[in-house]
């Protein structure tokens, strides 16, 4: 109980911290705290494997990706944005809307009855780490992943491959677009158009 509330406070505080910082590096740190707290939550919910995965993948890989990108983009410390704010004074409406939505969610959560628990809950073993029949253990997770949930597993692999290809295509060394080359192309196109007007637009 106490653990829940302490962790909840940290979770929310770090989330607010993340979105409210001017510097992205501070936001990344806030996000890191958020993820670790989440991992703690998972452990308290008997999902040990997931807790570890959370730390390894999320905070270890994804956040590192964020950090690398911040480092890549030169203005990583100072203000990042230029240009006018095209949606000014949007904080209040956004907060109001989210509060309203949250209110409905809370109402629904409180008033929606949770159905009868399945029979095996009472008899399931929530025991020490390691055994295969223990809920949330690595072995249990692994058995499920490679037998009953094999298809999602394979599809996920495909998704990751697509992501890799996409990243290489988007951010990789693509066809060099030197300004000279593109200008030359544009000049050529113009003269061709000037030489042969194809369509006469008539006002009728």
């Amino acid at each position, binding site marked *: 109980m106490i653990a829940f509330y302490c962790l909840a406070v940290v979770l929310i505080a770090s989330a607010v911290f993340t979105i409210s910082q001017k510097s992205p590096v501070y936001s990344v740190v806030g996000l890191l705290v958020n993820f670790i707290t989440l991992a703690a939550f998972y452990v308290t919910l008997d999902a040990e494997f997931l807790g570890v995965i959370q730390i390894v993948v999320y905070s270890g890989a994804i956040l590192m990706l964020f950090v690398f990108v911040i480092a890549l983009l030169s203005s990583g410390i100072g203000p990042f944005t230029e240009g006018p704010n095209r949606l000014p004074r949007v904080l209040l409406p956004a907060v109001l*809307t989210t509060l309203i939505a949250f209110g409905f969610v809370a109402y629904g959560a409180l008033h929606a009855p949770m159905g009868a628990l399945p029979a095996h809950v009472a008899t399931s073993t929530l025991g020490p780490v390691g055994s295969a029949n223990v809920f949330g253990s690595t072995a249990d997770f692994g058995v499920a992943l490679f037998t009953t949930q094999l298809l999602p597993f394979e599809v996920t692999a495909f998704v990751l491959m697509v992501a890799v290809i996409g990243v290489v295509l988007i951010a990789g060394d693509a066809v060099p677009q030197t300004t000279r080359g593109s200008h030359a192309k544009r000049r050529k196109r113009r003269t061709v158009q000037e030489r042969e007007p194809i369509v006469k637009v008539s006002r009728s």
Partner: protein
Amino acid sequence: MNGLLLVWLLPLGGAILCWAFGPQLGRRAGALGSAVVLVAFVRACMLFGDATGPTGVHQTLVTWVPGFTFGLWLDPLSLLWTLIITGVGGLIHVYSIGYMWSDKAIARFFAYMNFFVFAMLTLVLSDNIVGLLVGWGLVGLASYFLIGFWFYKPAAVAAAKKAFVINVFGDIGIMFAVFALFAATSSISFSDIFAKAGTLSSGLLVAVCVGLFIGAAAKSAQVPLHTWLPDAMEGPTPVSALIHAATMVTAGVYLVARFAPLYSLSPPVQEGVAVIGALTMVMGALLGVAQWDIKRILAYSTMSQIGYMIMGVGVGAYQAGVLHFFTHAFFKAQLFLTAGLIIHALHDEQDVRKMGGLFERMPFAFWAMLIGTLAIIGFPYSSGYFSKDAVIYGALQHGHPVLYIAGILTAGLTAYYMFRMIFLTFFGPYRGDADAAEGGHGADHGGHAPSWLMQLPVAILIVPTIFAGFVDFHSGDAPSRWQLFFGTLFNVSNNVAGPVWPIPQTASSMIVLVVVAAGLYVAYLRYGTPAAQLASVDRLIAETKAMPLALRRAFFFDDAIDFAIVKPARLLGGAISNFVDPHVIDAAVRDLVWIAGALGVVFRKLQTGLVRGYALTIVIGAAVFIAYFALLGAAR
């Protein structure tokens, strides 16, 4: 193939062939068209025996739904009309080959003529009211085609439109009657309707008979729907002969005769029919006196003679009225064809004031026209004599003394204006232009038709013109062949009590002859005496000037219709096209377009391209969804 089907469809086949292969056929279309109609005539003659049998010849075409059976029926009435249409029509087709010899569109002409024959056959051969209505409409269409055949003449186009519009007016009447009959009897065939005729309410009967007669009046040029007939003379003369003399304008007579069972059950409508017929009879004769165009004289004469026929079937003397149709077809066709000979010879001159002295130049035309004229005035023992006497005496017999006197007087008028035409055309000095005097056709005329093509049909028609009346010849009380031909078809009217005034038929004929002779004598005095002939040019100029306004303007019927109907219609059309069309209808479309554009402008403001804005919108939508499921989804 069944004979009746062949008779009906052969002209249609001819029309289609002439239409489709016109350019290739050229003048041969004339031979094709004529052959088709004459073969139909022969085949119809072969069906004579079966048609006069107890049930006639029946040919079912198609049964659509029960109560809607389309078919053909050849009974004595339709047989008579069929023989006239194909027989006289065939002769006129042959004549047309000569008349239209140098016309470039000769194939189209014969297509239209064959189409007309087919349409008229549809009208008379149908055994149901719907088929009759179809034929009725098609005949009006054929008339429009043929009147406006020379479509580059504005007068012809106007006349065709006038004829069609007035016919449409009549179509409303007959359509109403057809629909009412079907609604009342749930069947369209004549046999069913006539069987149930007694069960129809008298109000319905009156309405139906009036509706039918409105259609008949329009088609047969009865007052007040007669104004299209004189103008229809803009068409070629064979057209006037076939359609506006012998067959189409008699469709009204056929209609009243066919619906005799219904008319005999509503005496007031019959009275009305007879009165209108008599009115037309008198008015046509009066106007015929004042005409200078040879074809218009004959047109008004046709109007008057059909008035006789309508009066005949109106008083209940069906056999007399139909007999007059029979004889009139022959002599009127012959008169028109002869007039065509004259017009052709004088290089399209139609004004009688410019004719004269043709007695030596065209003897054949003179004798033909004389014989036709003697028939139409009722010279003793000519065909017209029998039929006119039957109609006039029939009026007396069925209790209409006033109509009787009107018939006699009109006979006198008929004699007057017909002989006026003869004297002005054939006697006295020639009053026309010099180049028409030499026969008209120079070397550059482009070939001329062999003259036998036009003279032979006229010659053939002389025979029935003289002798056709004898079918009604009977001695004493024995029934004539005519009465035997019709059998019990018209035994529907039963008010033949006896003549109103006790005048035997022979005495009545004498009275008619006296009046006719008087008319002839007056015409002779005015136009036929040698003194009158010598001074004809001056006298005609004087007569033209002195013509009363009422006669010149055809009793102002055209003016009245123009004022009451045409002008308001034009105003309404102008108002709609100048105001309603651009400001109401176009405005509606413009407004729709404007609304679409305005909506577009509004919705375009949503497309800001801002991701954050889109995110906010998504959240708002999500909030709505969550609200729904939170509040209502729980109670599923």
